[in-house]
């Protein structure tokens, strides 16, 4: 019961912690790092930056100081146990930091502490008060708020009495805290431990691990916040770059599925393909995968897409992992797509690198960086299958998921091409990202009658009625042309077969036309004959009629004569009978 009660009590206390003001943090100014840690390193406390040799500890610490001095008005002290001030100045110049100038301005100081065991004999008890005095003096000289100790472990090599050293280090960290110094302690990574001499035991507020790892002969730099007392932080390994302008940590996390969607449709650059995609093309901000075997025209299709985007005045970023930009421009000119004006106007920017140059994370990092710098509306990755040579399928998929989320979040329309290996199921992408994309256009080669021909169909396209037809895909000097394939009684006919069939059909149509003409002429002739016959009959009839009328007229005339003769006769008789008193004219 007692235990249960205690547990409840612990739960009850939690909300009180949340009400406390958050841990004060000092921004490091290192790009991306402050995002991961929610504001930087703990103010007034030491943080441990550990990692193997050459992982960038010193550069990380230097940038922390330089940014502090130049951007946050916090002078810094660099305590170098290993390098001389000259060496250090030279080393960080590669990041664009000018320590000498900063020292002249009095906002930074490099204190070199040299310790060499061979030169030191120990004879009795001592402490490290000398170190404290030197640090104190240096801190006061520039009014330092930030301090870097790089690296304290040298002391373990220089002094025999490690028990005393540990006591003194504990005192040193306490002392730094009391002075309110935001400190970075660097330490070399030990075998199975974070640091070789267990410094993490003393610096427990914040521990950052840097890593420079070789995977498949490809180096990747990563950073991880192992521990950050009193604050929430990203727990992933984040890749980081050491570039011309300092360190850049890339907070690469999935943006999730909360991005906005657009109703706008944009052309693929190929009218026939737009026709297949509901007549209007792709949605802006959508993800399109073009997959196909070698030489099916994936890059050509990409070039059309890019060209049309540039013509709309949009900025395009073309990641080429297989060809040099100049080669792409040259090759696309042969199919009537001239990308050179787009390049010279800056609308089209190429970013070419071999996938094997970096690790996957580094690629993602550099792509993020390029996208942030260029801020394009359209991005093309040609091809993504090349990443398979660098990482495992799951890693590539993870990379693409994060990249897609990143792009969608920014409303960038993206086109991936994917080289599928011949023989296997074409609907199987090597990378298995089909579920991530909105539109999947499949280019395939149909081999028949001793030739190969290209065909295209839309495997899926979310949110639009898309064509279910296979279209033939021609690369002409004027660009890509889509033609309806001939689906006849002999099956799907493409290429020469289609042309032959078309020719046959044309001939057949012509002969049909001629037959119709012939029949029409024949009919006309018959009609004319008929009409002539009708005319003749009519004339016959008319002449007969005339004859008849003439006869009838004659007969009528005869009748009239007869009647008058009869009347005369009757009158004559009447006259006679009246003379005889009664008479019968009929009998007369």
């Amino acid at each position, binding site marked *: 019961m007692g235990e249960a009660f205690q547990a409840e009590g612990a739960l009850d206390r939690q909300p009180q912690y949340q009400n406390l003001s958050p841990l004060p943090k000092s921004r490091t100014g290192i790009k991306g790092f402050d995002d991961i840690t929610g504001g930087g390193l703990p103010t007034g406390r030491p943080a441990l930056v550990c990692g193997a040799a050459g992982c960038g500890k010193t550069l990380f610490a230097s940038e922390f100081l330089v940014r502090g001095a130049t951007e946050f008005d916090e002078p810094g002290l660099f305590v170098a146990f290993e390098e001389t001030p000259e060496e250090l100045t030279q080393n960080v110049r590669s990041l664009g930091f000018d320590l000498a100038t900063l020292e002249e301005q009095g906002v930074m100081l490099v*204190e070199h502490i*040299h310790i060499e065991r061979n030169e030191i004999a120990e*004879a*009795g*008890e*001592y402490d490290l008060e000398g170190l404290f005095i*030197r640090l104190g003096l240096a801190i006061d000289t520039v009014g330092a708020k930030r301090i870097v100790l790089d690296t304290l472990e040298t002391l373990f090599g220089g002094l025999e009495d490690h028990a005393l050293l540990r006591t003194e280090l504990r005192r040193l960290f306490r002392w730094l805290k009391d002075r309110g110094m935001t400190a970075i302690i660097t330490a070399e990574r030990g075998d199975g431990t974070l640091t070789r001499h267990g410094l993490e035991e003393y610096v427990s507020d914040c521990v950052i691990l840097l890593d420079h790892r070789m995977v498949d002969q490809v180096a990747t730099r990563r950073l991880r916040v192992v521990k950050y007392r009193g604050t929430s932080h990203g727990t992933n390994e984040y890749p980081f770059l050491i570039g011309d302008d300092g360190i850049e940590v890339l907070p690469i996390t999935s943006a999730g599925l909360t991005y906005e969607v657009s109703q706008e449709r944009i052309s693929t650059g190929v009218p026939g393909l737009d026709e297949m995609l509901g007549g209007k093309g792709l949605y802006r901000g959508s993800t399109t995968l073009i997959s196909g075997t070698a030489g099916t025209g994936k890059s050509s299709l990409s070039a059309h897409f890019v060209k049309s985007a540039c013509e709309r005045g949009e900025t395009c970023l073309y990641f080429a992992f297989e060809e040099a930009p100049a080669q792409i421009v040259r090759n696309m000119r042969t199919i009537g797509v001239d990308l050179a004006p787009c390049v010279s106007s800056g609308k089209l920017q190429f970013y070419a690198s071999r996938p094997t140059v970096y690790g996957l994370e580094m690629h993602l990092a550099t792509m993020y960086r390029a996208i942030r710098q260029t801020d394009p509306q359209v991005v093309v990755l040609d091809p993504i299958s090349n990443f398979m040579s660098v990482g495992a399928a799951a890693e590539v998929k993870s990379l693409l998921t994060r990249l897609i989320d990143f792009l969608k979040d920014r409303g960038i329309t993206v086109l991936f091409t994917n080289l599928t290996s011949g023989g296997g199921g074409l609907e199987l992408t090597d990378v298995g990202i089909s579920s991530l994309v909105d539109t999947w256009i499949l280019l395939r080669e149909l081999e028949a009658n001793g030739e190969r021909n290209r065909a295209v169909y839309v495997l899926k396209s979310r949110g639009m009625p898309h064509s279910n037809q296979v279209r033939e895909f021609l690369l002409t000097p004027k660009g890509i042309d889509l033609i309806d394939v001939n689906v006849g009684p002999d099956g799907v006919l493409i290429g020469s077969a289609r042309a032959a069939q078309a020719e046959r059909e044309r001939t057949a149509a012509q002969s049909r036309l001629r037959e119709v003409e012939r029949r029409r002429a024949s009919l006309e002739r018959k009609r004319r004959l008929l009409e002539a016959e009708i005319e003749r009959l009519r004339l016959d009839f008319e002449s007969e009629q005339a004859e008849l009328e003439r006869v009838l007229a004659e007969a009528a005339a005869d009748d009239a004569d007869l009647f008058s003769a009869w009347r005369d006769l009757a009158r004559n008789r009447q006259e006679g009978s009246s003379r005889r008193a009664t008479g019968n004219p009929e009998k007369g």
Partner: protein
Amino acid sequence: MVDDIEEDLNPQSDWYGPGELCELRLYVAGETPRSVAALNNLKKICEEHLKGRYRIEVIDLLANPQLARGDQILAIPTLVRKLPAPVRRIIGDLSQTERVLVGLDLRQPS
């Protein structure tokens, strides 16, 4: 607090070359029991082995902290032999006489 303790040169000593002066600097931080012990131990050793041919300069870093940088002082107390060359550093309260003697090239390490 900078004390200068000079003794007469003793040309008969075997340890260093003839007429060679042993110039020593003892860095301390305030008058702590440890630094007092160090100075006493040092004086004793010098009297015994370098009589008349040594010079001890005591530097208090609390008073002159900027002097710590030049001789790369970390530990307190630190004894620096400036002359004869090469420079030697011995840290601690100098209670381990053997080690001090070895450190000052006054005895071969056993």
